[in-house]
């Protein structure tokens, strides 16, 4: 079929064109990060480093304390991931599988609260943490990531599919509710927990406004905050800034490639409303 073949060619041309446009900024970033200082800022268009060098990366880690910021980001994101998976899986499971009065109202209130922009509570939260002595601490940055309505809803939707018979059978055997959660429900919920973990890690790693507000002490700043500050001070150092961007983008990209399948399924699951 001639028509079919031409349509295939046009379709793939479109897809490849889109892919080139999508990747161009990221490829350019990587190429420039390997250039010698000053190489990118010339009137002639430089798309590829003449003699690739890791000098910019060395500069970031030796003179600009990037290892420190990297570590801060890693600690915040990993702690947020572990704690939020624990907190939200308990709550999501309870909302799906344990009967108690007021459950449906509670769930509806929670989903409705998702439209409230975080900014409404941001100023009082800052003042509260200031009272608690948590401003300029890693704990202070973590606080809003721990319980997430989105995460609870995501896990609840998934937990609804756990067969009640299975839970009741365990109850007949005299198992306590926490045991049932840990030994019966958690293994079934594993895919959604992995999704949730990847989600939390990525959003904590990439978040900017909240760490910007809470962490004024340079030593504690996360990568995005430190990078934004650096970008203001090193406007002319294109190559250096690109190396900083690469370092910041790499960990989430690796996390994604490792968990791609479950992550994508989670996004789709999160979009399915009852």
């Amino acid at each position, binding site marked *: 079929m001639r028509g079919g073949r031409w349509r295939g060619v046009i379709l793939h041309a479109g897809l490849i064109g889109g892919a080139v446009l999508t990747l161009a900024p990221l490829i350019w970033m990587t190429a420039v990060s390997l250039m010698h200082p000053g190489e990118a800022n010339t009137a002639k268009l430089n798309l590829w480093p003449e003699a690739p060098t890791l000098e910019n990366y060395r500069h970031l880690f030796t003179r600009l304390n990037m290892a420190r910021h990297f570590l801060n980001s890693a600690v915040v994101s990993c702690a947020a991931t572990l704690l939020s998976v624990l907190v939200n899986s308990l709550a999501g499971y309870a909302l799906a599988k344990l009967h108690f009065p007021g459950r449906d109202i509670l769930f509806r209130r929670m989903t409705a609260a998702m439209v409230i922009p975080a900014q*409404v509570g941001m100023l009082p939260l800052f003042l509260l943490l200031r009272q608690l002595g948590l401003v300029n601490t890693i704990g202070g940055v973590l606080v*809003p990531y721990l319980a997430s309505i989105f995460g609870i809803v995501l896990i609840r939707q998934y937990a609804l599919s756990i067969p009640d018979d299975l839970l009741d059978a365990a109850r007949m055997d005299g198992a306590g509710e926490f045991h049932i959660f840990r030994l019966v429900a958690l293994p079934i919920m594993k895919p959604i927990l992995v999704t949730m973990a990847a989600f939390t890690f990525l959003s904590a790693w990439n978040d900017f406004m909240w760490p910007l507000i809470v962490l004024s002490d340079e030593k504690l700043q996360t990568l995005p905050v430190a990078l934004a500050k650096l970008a203001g001070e090193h406007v002319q150092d294109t190559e250096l800034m690109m190396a900083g961007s690469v370092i910041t983008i790499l960990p989430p990209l690796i996390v994604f490639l490792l968990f791609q399948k479950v992550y994508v399924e989670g996004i789709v699951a999160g*979009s399915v409303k009852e």
Partner: protein
Amino acid sequence: MSLETRRRRAAWLFLTPALGLLTLFFVLPVVAGLALSLTDFDLYVVASPRTMRFIWLKQFVDVLRDAQFWNALRNTLYFVIVGGPLSVGVSLGAALLLNSRLVKARGLFRTVYFAPVLTTLVSVAIVWRYLYHPGYGLLNSFLSVIGIPGVDWLGDPRWAMPAIILLAVWKNFGYNMLIFVAGLQAIPGQLYEAAAIDGATSVQTFRHVTLPGLAPTFFFVGVTTMIGFFQVFAEPYVMTQGGPVGSTRTLVLHMYEEGFRWWRMGEASALAVLLLLITLLGALVQIRLAGGRR
């Protein structure tokens, strides 16, 4: 103790950590934010909290009289009304391409299109700042190759917001694309077969089968994208600091500066409450539109 009570008690135990954290770090701050928006909380109050007074709605009257607020609102609406639909449109386009039966290496394209979603906004904002450089930026270099004179993208008040919208579309379209692909796959194949038997053209099939089938997806994508786009902050913070001449100063950027740079927390809270009201209004409009279609 009956099984019923035991289960009820377990439920509340399971919910306590999440509800406690949400109450302490979300619900209470939101309520306090509403209260704060009725006060004159500023730098002096930070120094001595006792001087704080409730001025009730005067804070809102002041904000609504402030030209800066209207400028920030205008910029934010520009970003939401132009950038939102554009982003959703690109997502739908990419999803339709990916969903075609003829596509080879679908997984590869999907990963590539999704990659920008994972990137850190601050990093890519910095990258795009250089792409937009009037002298040696990639964009102007390519434009000059095809004979179009370059633009000072981030330095020209007319082009700064479109430039930021372009970055936001690039960064975000992959997310909604995945949701659209799932929505497309949920449309029953029989509907397409019936359309083919009736001799419908591909445009007719798209209008009468695909679009109605995607209605719930459109609603979800529309509302979530709008909520996210209303909160635009890091892009102008990193790329333009709200300039040139305030053309990219958005509501959240304005709120951040008033609240955390000048410590006018009463005013900043009022701005956040207005953001909430505008978001709710936008959500209601979309609910109306979705209801009207059905």
